[in-house]
């Protein structure tokens, strides 16, 4: 009989949905210790289980090319998808590190919105120079991360609720700065600031480059560093990670700073440059799209682990669907239906594969 260990106060005892799936897979694995070793053939990486979203993406390209042959298969469409999705991609990537560690950051869309209106206001009514504006915006985004981290790690408030609350505070800040008006001004659409997001090579904006760079950095962290190993361990089994000597609190603190920096400091400035304005409605819609991409991404490549390239694939696949539907003249609600259905199917397929009823 196993002794009952003394009950300990757990800080933020929360695992992400994907983490939960993993733990159920654990239980199933224990029940069937005799399960044969997984085949790892030469082409296992190309299985539907591993990169299903890529196949769906290819299918979408084929379908839309056949549907609207004059409009869809063009370089302009490629530009549109990449440029439109770059901001969503950055916000989704910002979520990858916290989610890996089992931490939710629901303030992320509001942080982006806050940095958008702050940045726009500083350059127009604030009369601040461009370099100083960028510095202030980046510092502000990190401060938001510090507040999140203090709430979640310091005050031990569940990250789901804690960052929901800080999101509301940011929403208040957005309204204070922007109100119901759109902040516009000559400095927003000129010179270096305008070039941040709107210049590029071959019609592909630099924002796409920022997105790919962020993905590469996150990929290296998660796959090749001690921190990455620790983050996943923390997300999968907080108690075991803590008992193995992993600094779980420090990790959670840092990932909340990083997510705030990427979503607010990077994506917030980029979106301001891209749309050359600051509006209270810019930020919040990114939240759902980013979470959808991050969760869909976790079903790709790394069997349930949140990861950078899977997230990027998910963003582009979902973006292709949205843009394709738009070009095909589908009604406005179609793209939301598309995203919702894809997310449900992806998680259902993954779950079925894990429990062994498929594949």
């Amino acid at each position, binding site marked *: *009989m*196993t002794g009952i260990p003394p009950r300990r106060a757990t800080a933020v005892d929360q695992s992400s949905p994907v983490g939960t799936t993993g733990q159920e897979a654990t239980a199933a694995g224990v029940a069937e210790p005799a399960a044969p070793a997984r085949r790892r053939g030469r082409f296992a990486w190309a299985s539907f289980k591993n990169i299903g979203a890529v196949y769906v993406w290819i299918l979408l390209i084929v379908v839309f090319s056949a549907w609207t042959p004059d409009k869809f298969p063009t370089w302009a469409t490629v530009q549109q998808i990449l440029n439109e999705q770059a901001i969503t991609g950055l916000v989704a990537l910002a979520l990858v590190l916290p989610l890996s560690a089992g931490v939710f950051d629901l303030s992320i869309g509001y942080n982006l919105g806050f940095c958008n209106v702050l940045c726009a206001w500083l350059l127009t009514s604030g009369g601040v120079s461009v370099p100083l504006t960028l510095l202030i915006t980046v510092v502000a985004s990190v401060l938001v991360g510090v507040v999140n981290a203090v709430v979640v790690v310091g005050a031990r408030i569940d990250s789901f609720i804690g960052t929901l609350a800080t999101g509301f505070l940011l929403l208040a800040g957005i309204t204070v700065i922007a109100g119901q008006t759109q902040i516009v001004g000559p400095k927003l659409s000129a010179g270096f600031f305008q070039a941040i997001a709107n210049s590029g090579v071959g019609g592909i904006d630099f924002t796409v480059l920022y997105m790919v760079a962020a993905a590469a950095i996150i990929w290296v962290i998660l796959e090749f560093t001690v921190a990455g190993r620790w983050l996943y361990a923390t997300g999968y089994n907080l108690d075991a990670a803590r008992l193995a000597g992993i600094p779980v609190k420090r990790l959670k603190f840092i990932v909340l700073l990083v997510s705030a920096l990427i979503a607010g400091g990077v994506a917030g400035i980029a979106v301001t440059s891209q749309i050359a304005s600051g509006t209270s409605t810019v930020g919040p819609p990114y939240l759902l799209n980013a979470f959808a991409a991050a969760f869909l991404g976790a079903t790709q490549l790394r069997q349930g682990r949140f990861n950078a390239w899977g997230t990027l694939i998910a963003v582009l696949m979902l973006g292709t669907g949205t843009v394709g539907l738009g070009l095909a003249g589908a009604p406005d609600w179609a793209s939301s239906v598309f995203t919702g259905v894809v997310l449900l199917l992806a998680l259902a397929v993954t779950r079925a594969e894990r429990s062994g009823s498929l594949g």
Partner: protein
Amino acid sequence: MPAGDAERLRPATGLRLENVSKSFSGRTVLRNVDLEVMPDEVHGLVGQNGSGKSTLIKVLAGYHKPDPGARAWLDDEPFELGSVPAEHGLKIRFVHQDLALVLQLDAMDNVALGGGYAKRRPGLIHWRQQARQTRKALARFGLAIDIDVPLAQLAPVERTAVAIVRALAGWDEDSGVLVLDEPTASLPASEVDRLHSIVREVSQQGAGVVYVSHRLDDVIAVADRISVLRDGELVGTYRADEVDSGRLASLMVGHVVEHKRSREFAPAKESAPVLTARGVTARWLQGVDIDVWPGEIVGVSGVLGSGREELPYLLASASTALVSGEITVAGHQLPSASPRAAQSLGVGFVPADRLREAVIGPFAMRENLTLAGVTGIATGGVLRQHDERALVEAWMEKINIVPRDPGRPLPKFSGGNQQKVILARVLSLSPKLLVLTEPTAGVDVGAREAIYEVIRSEVVERQLAVVVASSDIQDLVALCHRVLVIRHGRVVRELRGGEVSYGAILHATEGTNQQDLTAEKGAQ
């Protein structure tokens, strides 16, 4: 003494089991067990770990299906074991060790979760009637519990009582069996008497009670008859007034083959203890002192709730429960509640609940093995993947992890191999002190000896100091130079060298008299 010779208390049997056997993949854990529980009888069930006690309960609960040939009757009506048809499911009720209560809810809600709410049209809860029913049910046991406060605010024994009342909800009063699994495990000694009177009250109202407990004096105090299981077989059923705890302990142990090996330990000259703990006081512990020297293996024994399960967590700084006391490791004071700080002082810790506290579920075996020592195979925070593979290879070779597949998720390995990986995780840090909790829980017989061998060889090779806290006395017998026995939060006995034996540890742990064992052996 022949089995089952106690006189019948009533003409009709409450519960009768005949020829119950159960084997798991070829290993027999229950062999031809017969059991009779009379109505209005409290029937104790005792046995060591692995005696088949919990398997028997699970067969009764319909969780396991017994091997063919088993027969069962309830109130002289035959029924099939291993399934839970409404018919007998309604007549056999269980209160499990963890009570399965919702502590945030009050007594009324918890009782209603078992028996349903009193309803009024159109489908709303009739709260007043529900309250009346709950009060009435609790009053039967002389309990004046405030039914409107969350259970978390009640005394442990009151929670147990609520669990019993819930199990009995809708009870048909003249028949049936109530099974209590370790009901005193989490009760302070002062509340055990209250529980006993509640249990007797249940049996006096016509129900048979099966009372499973580790605490032998507890069983003797409350039971009318006691059945003893050992190695999956029924040793016998005895009237409680005919046995004392010493005799029960001897019956539970039987003839144990004691490994003859040298247990003598003398610390090397001019060496200092690796671990020194003074006056450790926490939730259960009431001032415990321990010294462990390099190369020494010290065992900690104690029944559930004695403080045995708390001590290793304190020594590894994994618990916030420390109230007072001083723990030093290699001359440095151990900070409180920081496993990381303990690790940097050289403490390696293997927690009790492998799945919840050690295994990172979806992680591959490789990632699990290197989890704690991962900084040692990294340059500037970046993993040296070649070194990681080499490290895992070396450990797979050294402690024989099967199958040798570093990429396989750890939960797909057998319990024994999982435990080896967790041990390797800790040992790869080259700790000075190894704190082991339940080192062989859920580990099959073959892997057990392999795990002992890993620990012994590390101790010899590296002069590692080890603390083993285990509810499994076999672990302590196999490993320890010295065993500390904890009862009610205090070290009550220290067994050294040649004194360490299965029987001696068991008697000291249960608080029974060693003399009885000798007498028993002499008589046979």
